[in-house]
């Protein structure tokens, strides 16, 4: 009874979201360039759909195709193959000036020969909005980005953070269906960047516009996004919410790119129902789930986050996964102790130990230790 109720409840809340037309859709999009006679595949078939009002990040290292994907949404690049849809409409061959999205450029691209006011009013003037309305909306948006009173300034007379906010205002004033941001905080220093992250999230909540955010900074993506697409070499490796991406990285690349992670490999020793046991070294025992089916003798790679691991000088009891190793480095970081532990097969494991108690250091360099973690914290990599 309760189960059925819970089930229908979930169905009801999920239904409007799933029936709603996505704000942005990429359907098997490919982009090829010819450079010096060689064909370069920048984007190798990306499909994703971004919901209305979502803060969506495209995350990956430089050259992974994230900026090219965004530029195809904006209309600056024509896909070699595939379809781009905005609110269900195919816009693949629509020029950028006729697409209802606006972009914040990495270099801000503010017009240097125009004042702040003229920069912000540019889009509205192009759309022939009447003068009184332009005045009202420009004033309003400058208030949102906290630049009231600076209307007559030229962009070069402003600081990087202010220029950034002008760029944001210039895009937002048009009330686009989606805002595209290409590494907008890249040129700011760390403090300002952190302040702008919070600011961006606030503005996005206030205006309720879909944000598509391109970044190579995993911290930025994890902090702000509703969902993240991690891109690697022209493909989406994983598309999920930040927690899922961090806690359950789907590929070796994602595990390595997001945060610090430990890679382990072993051979399946026995399979019992929903769990399998891996053998790594003598007295090691790692339990994994069989969500991804495995058979005895299979070689498996898995990842464990450093903060999930407990370090001890005695063998722990219970059904925890256990490996043995030698401490090769201890680093005191104030809020935590970091250990580097080398296993019998040479793999190096990083362990974060929170500095919650007075007990300072559990083990010293050269000590033999047992590392253990809950079985559900092992993730098998594809």
């Amino acid at each position: 009874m309760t189960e059925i109720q819970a089930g229908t409840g979930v169905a009801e809340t999920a239904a409007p979201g799933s029936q709603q037309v996505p704000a942005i859709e990429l359907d098997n999009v490919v982009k090829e360039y010819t450079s010096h006679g060689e064909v370069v595949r920048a984007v190798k078939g990306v499909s994703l759909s971004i919901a209305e009002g979502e803060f969506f990040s495209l995350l990956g290292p430089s050259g992974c195709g994230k900026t090219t994907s965004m530029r195809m949404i904006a209309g600056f690049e024509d896909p070699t193959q595939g379809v781009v849809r905005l609110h269900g409409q195919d816009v693949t061959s629509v020029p950028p000036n006729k697409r209802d999205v606006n972009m914040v450029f990495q270099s801000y691209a503010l017009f240097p020969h125009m004042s702040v006011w003229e920069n912000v009013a540019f889009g509205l003037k192009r759309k022939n909005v009447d003068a009184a309305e332009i005045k009202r909306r420009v004033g309003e948006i400058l208030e949102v980005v906290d630049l009231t009173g600076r209307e007559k300034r030229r962009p070069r007379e402003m600081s990087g953070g202010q220029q950034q906010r002008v760029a944001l205002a210039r895009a937002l004033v048009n009330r686009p269906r989606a805002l595209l941001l290409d590494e907008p905080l890249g040129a700011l220093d760390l403090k300002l960047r952190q302040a702008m992250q919070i600011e961006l999230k606030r503005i996005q909540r206030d205006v309720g516009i879909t944000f598509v955010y391109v970044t190579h900074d995993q911290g930025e993506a994890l902090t702000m996004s509703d969902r993240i697409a991690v891109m690697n070499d022209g493909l989406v490796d994983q598309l999920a919410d930040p927690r899922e991406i961090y806690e359950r990285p789907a590929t070796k690349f994602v595990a390595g790119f997001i945060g610090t992670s430990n890679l382990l490999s072993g051979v399946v020793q026995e399979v019992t129902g929903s769990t399998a046991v891996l053998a790594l070294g003598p007295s090691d025992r790692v339990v994994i789930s069989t969500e991804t089916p495995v058979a005895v003798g299979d070689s498996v790679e898995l990842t464990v986050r450093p903060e999930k691991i407990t370090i001890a000088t005695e063998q722990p009891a219970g059904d925890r996964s256990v490996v043995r190793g030698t401490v090769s480095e201890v680093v005191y970081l104030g809020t935590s102790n970091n250990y580097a532990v080398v296993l019998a097969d040479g793999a190096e494991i990083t362990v974060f130990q929170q500095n919650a108690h007075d007990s300072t250091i559990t083990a010293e360099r050269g000590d033999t230790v047992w590392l253990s973690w809950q079985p559900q914290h092992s993730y098998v990599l594809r």
Partner: protein
Amino acid sequence: MNRGLFRGRGLQIYTWLVIAWLVVPIAVMILFGFNDTKGRFNTVWQGFTFKWYGRLFEIDALTQALINSLVIAVLTMVIAGALGSLIGLALGRYRFRGSGSLNLVMFAAISCAEIVMGASLLSFFVTLAVPLGFWTIVISHVMFSISFVAVTVRARVMTLDSSLEEAARDLGAGPWATFRLVTLPMIFPGVLAGSMLAFALSIDDFVITNFNAGGTVTFPLWIWGVTRVGIPPQVNVMGTIIFVVGLLIAVSNIVVSRRRRNA
């Protein structure tokens, strides 16, 4: 040990010599515009007078030659300025089939000896049976000054952030509005510099003009024609006026850009 040679007094004297070398001919030209010359030859100082300024337009053929030169220079400035700017924009912004060859042609036109260019233009016009005169001069001047404009504008375009144009497109401006509102204002200093260069090249060109002028006489051609019978002081006065106008434009350019930098 070499440094001693270029320090102190030696360097000062050398510097002033170079400046004198550049300035003395111009000073002589200006000075002899005030020479109260009695004969046909204006080469010996015979006293100070303003009268040549009052009698500036007394020689009809000279006045007509100056008018011809000014009209041709303005036409060249406008036509070569517009076409050259577009070439410069294309070369600076896009990689296209033949852009390398076009670049080469531009530099070839700049480095080509005037005498060669003048002669080949003449044979070109003769072959096509184009009557020589005012319009063949304009065509020739546009032809040789267009590369200077293109190169000047191209240099400016290369420093432009191409995302500015993308931003304009993104904000709803079509290709033409983007050019008018963003690209042109941004490259305008280059366009202006290139056009003024075209004007300057046109107004004092002799070699190419001489080949292709037919019966039309320009300011330099007229002076060349009277060299043997004596150059009247009006020429010095006109030369002085052209020089002063050029100087004023250059100075105001410096003042404006300095004020803009300080703003």
